[in-house]
């Protein structure tokens, strides 16, 4: 290092330390959100320069002269050597979604500090490490998927178990994401209208790019965007018209059924008609909105109104149940560490890397960027009044359905808020009520509206900005729902096809419809149970999602540890083993608590016991209204408990396979990993 760069990095370290100290040590006085942003950026810079590059150099021992899959299989289609900045953008767009926006918002109930510290520590030592190591493994194996890597390095059984785990995770993700949309759109004609218009808009775009101007992405996206903004503006008139508004005013149950039907239809339609064009819109809107949020925070520099730490770290919070450990660490998955990224890092990105040495920039750096999105979500949730935050995120079972009672309950928790503020906020954003709009999206939307309206439009445009934020989240969640359903359908066909080979035929309409029905009914069932859930669903299902996602990360990091042992790099195995261990501790504790905890608010079985006992006496416990609903609640508890337990079993068995494989690797005195491409010096074409 030159003296100048030492000085520069020293400066960044000092600046970052000061910002972090301001964030962590201020008690009672309000701090500006810019401190949070500065602390995060300095942490990222230092982590990348000193840990990300270290991993690339010492742990991966990247070889600039080794031909990557993009060169060895170059076909101009899947395998294309791609400029690293372009690939970084591609990779970031693929990993960033609703997760980093929702988790931090929910975690804000414990104050901004615990979540922020976990986001920063998690991304540096776990999330970015996982993403870049999996990218490395896949790049050295012709861009193979995580499942294939597990199979070839740890055996077919471990691979099969991991595959079942991935399938369950997909189902949970789809159900939870759909639930976020339901929570945001229920009783909101403006929101429901705009989101529904995205369907005809996507079809117009699809037809345009198929028949009128084939393949003109920019043109059709601009057309789509203009139509979308028109619908968004017009949505206010719809909501204000007593004649039309009722047609777009849906209950949660109706929305759930509509979404389930939509998921089915959208996933069997030709992709060019609906799925692809809507993905274009949602991708560009997502990147644009994230950039706008970053810009907005820097221009407005809003103060954080949420306390650094609230009393709810003891586990009694209304947003999600359970104490800081382990539940904070599963509530914020994406943004800190997300197992799902292991699927993306072993997807298209490794097939396009120009040179191995770019792996830290794309894998580690891309994840740092996503973590920054999570930090911005934390800021957005913390700039709104804490009383409003709790009104939006607490289940109606706790705070009731009218502003006066809600304000009183939230006041009793120590967060002063007037009923007027609750109704005024609802009016400002163009809604009739903001109570119990759990799921993160509406809260984030209020936060974003607060920030954006400070830049442009003031109070007059707050409703527009709120619904813009809702729209952008709903849009990419819906894309995830139909694309994910489609992916699940093929997984179902693959799994059942293992027993009945004829079912693998993806050309058959019967197979297609049957597999889609199975996939849709699985996530649809969980979604519906979430919608009618007494605690509002998010409270119950988000932890399951967090556990599953973190367990996948655990599986990916166990795989990385095993491969490091097989490469005879056990000296550096701690880089993957340390976060793997932490994730196992968190997820196993959380998973077992969700199943067996004696508090019915946390443990599914004790909740089932409580309702089961009442049922046996013929009593009806709120919020159930009759014995049938009581039976439903007990049954759902057993479903949720089984899912949580299944995740525990999956991760424990992968751990056992991993340990056995490590023992085998240690007994061998030569490297035993199965890489591809080391022997080929020149460039070989497929």
């Amino acid at each position, binding site marked *: 290092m030159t003296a100048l760069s030492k000085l520069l990095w020293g400066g960044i370290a000092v600046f970052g330390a000061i910002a972090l100290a301001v964030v962590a040590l201020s008690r009672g006085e309000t701090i500006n959100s810019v401190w949070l942003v500065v602390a995060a950026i300095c942490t990222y810079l230092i982590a990348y320069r000193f840990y990300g590059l270290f991993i690339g150099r010492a742990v991966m021992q990247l070889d600039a002269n080794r031909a990557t899959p993009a060169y060895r299989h*170059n*076909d*101009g*289609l*899947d395998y*294309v050597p*791609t*400029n690293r*900045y*372009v*690939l970084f*953008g*591609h990779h970031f*767009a*693929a*990993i960033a*979604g*609703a*997760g980093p926006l*929702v988790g931090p918002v929910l975690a804000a109930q414990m104050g901004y500090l615990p979540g922020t510290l976990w986001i920063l520590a998690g991304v540096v030592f776990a999330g970015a490490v996982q993403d870049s190591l999996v990218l490395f493994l896949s790049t050295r194996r012709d861009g193979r998927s995580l499942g294939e890597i597990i199979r070839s390095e740890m055996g077919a059984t471990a691979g099969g178990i991991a595959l079942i785990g991935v399938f369950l995770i*997909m189902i949970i*993700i789809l159900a939870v994401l759909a639930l976020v949309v339901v929570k945001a759109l229920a009783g909101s004609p403006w929101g429901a209208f705009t989101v529904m218009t995205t369907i005809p808009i996507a079809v117009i775009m699809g037809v345009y790019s198929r028949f009128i101007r*084939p*393949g003109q*992405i*920019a043109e059709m996206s601009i057309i789509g965007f203009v139509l979308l903004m028109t619908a968004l503006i017009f949505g206010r008139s719809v909501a204000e018209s007593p004649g039309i508004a009722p047609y777009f005013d849906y209950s949660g149950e109706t929305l759930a059924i509509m979404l389930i039907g939509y998921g089915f239809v959208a*996933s069997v339609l030709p*992709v*060019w008609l609906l*799925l*692809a064009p809507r*993905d*274009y819109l949602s*991708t*560009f809107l997502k*990147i644009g909105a994230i950039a706008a949020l970053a810009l907005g925070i820097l221009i407005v520099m809003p103060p954080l109104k949420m306390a650094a730490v609230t009393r709810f770290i003891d586990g009694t919070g209304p947003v999600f149940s359970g104490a800081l450990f382990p539940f904070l660490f599963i509530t914020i*998955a*994406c943004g800190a560490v*997300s197992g*799902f*990224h292991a*699927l*993306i890092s072993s*997807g*298209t990105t490794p097939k*396009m890397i120009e040179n191995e040495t770019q792996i830290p920039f794309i894998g580690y750096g891309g994840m740092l960027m996503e973590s920054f999105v999570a930090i911005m979500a934390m800021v957005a949730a913390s700039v709104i009044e804490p009383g409003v935050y709790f009104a939006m995120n607490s289940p109606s079972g706790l705070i009731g359905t009218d502003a006066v009672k809600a304000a009183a309950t939230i006041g009793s928790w120590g967060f002063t808020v007037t009923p007027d503020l609750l109704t005024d906020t609802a009016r400002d954003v163009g809604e009739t009520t903001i109570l119990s709009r759990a799921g993160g999206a509406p809260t984030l939307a209020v936060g974003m509206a607060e920030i954006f309206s400070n830049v442009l439009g003031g109070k007059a445009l707050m409703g527009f900005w709120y619904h813009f934020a809702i729209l952008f989240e709903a849009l*990419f969640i819906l*894309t*995830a729902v139909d*694309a*994910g*359903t*489609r*992916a*699940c*359908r*093929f997984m179902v066909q693959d799994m059942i096809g293992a027993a009945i080979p004829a079912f693998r035929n993806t050309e058959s309409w019967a197979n297609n419809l049957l597999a889609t029905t199975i996939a849709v009914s699985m996530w649809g069932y969980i979604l519906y149970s979430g919608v009618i859930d007494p605690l509002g669903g998010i409270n119950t299902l988000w932890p399951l*999602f967090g556990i599953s*996602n973190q367990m996948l990360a655990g599986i990916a990091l166990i795989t990385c540890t095993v491969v490091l042992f097989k490469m005879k790099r056990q000296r550096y195995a701690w880089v993957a083993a340390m976060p793997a261990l932490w994730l196992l501790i968190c997820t196993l504790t959380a998973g077992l608590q969700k199943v067996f905890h004696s508090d019915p608010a946390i443990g599914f079985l004790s909740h089932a016991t409580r309702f089961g006992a009442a049922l046996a006496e013929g009593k009806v416990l709120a919020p159930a209204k009759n014995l049938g609903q009581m039976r439903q609640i007990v049954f759902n508890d057993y479903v949720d408990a089984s899912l949580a337990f299944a995740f525990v079993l999956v991760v424990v068995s992968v751990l056992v396979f991993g340990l056995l494989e490590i023992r085998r690797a240690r007994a061998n005195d030569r490297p035993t990993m199965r890489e591809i491409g080391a022997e080929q010096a020149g460039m070989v*074409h497929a």
Partner: protein
Amino acid sequence: MRDSTTNLRWGPPAASNLKTLVSRIRETSRLMVGIPDYDRYVEHVSTNHPERPIMSYREFFDNRQQARYGMGMKRCC
């Protein structure tokens, strides 16, 4: 790819840098939705596999769209 000395001059080089930037942004945006560079595909096939037929842009677009979405997309949270 880029000539570093051009950065030292005023005028046209700045314009060409801007052009590179714009084309990179365009390329990134298209790749984000699964469409790689068509010209590079044509160049690749015509240089390395002159015996193979080259897809028209329309065929190429459909091919890539199907590749990205056909089997469903795993999209993160």
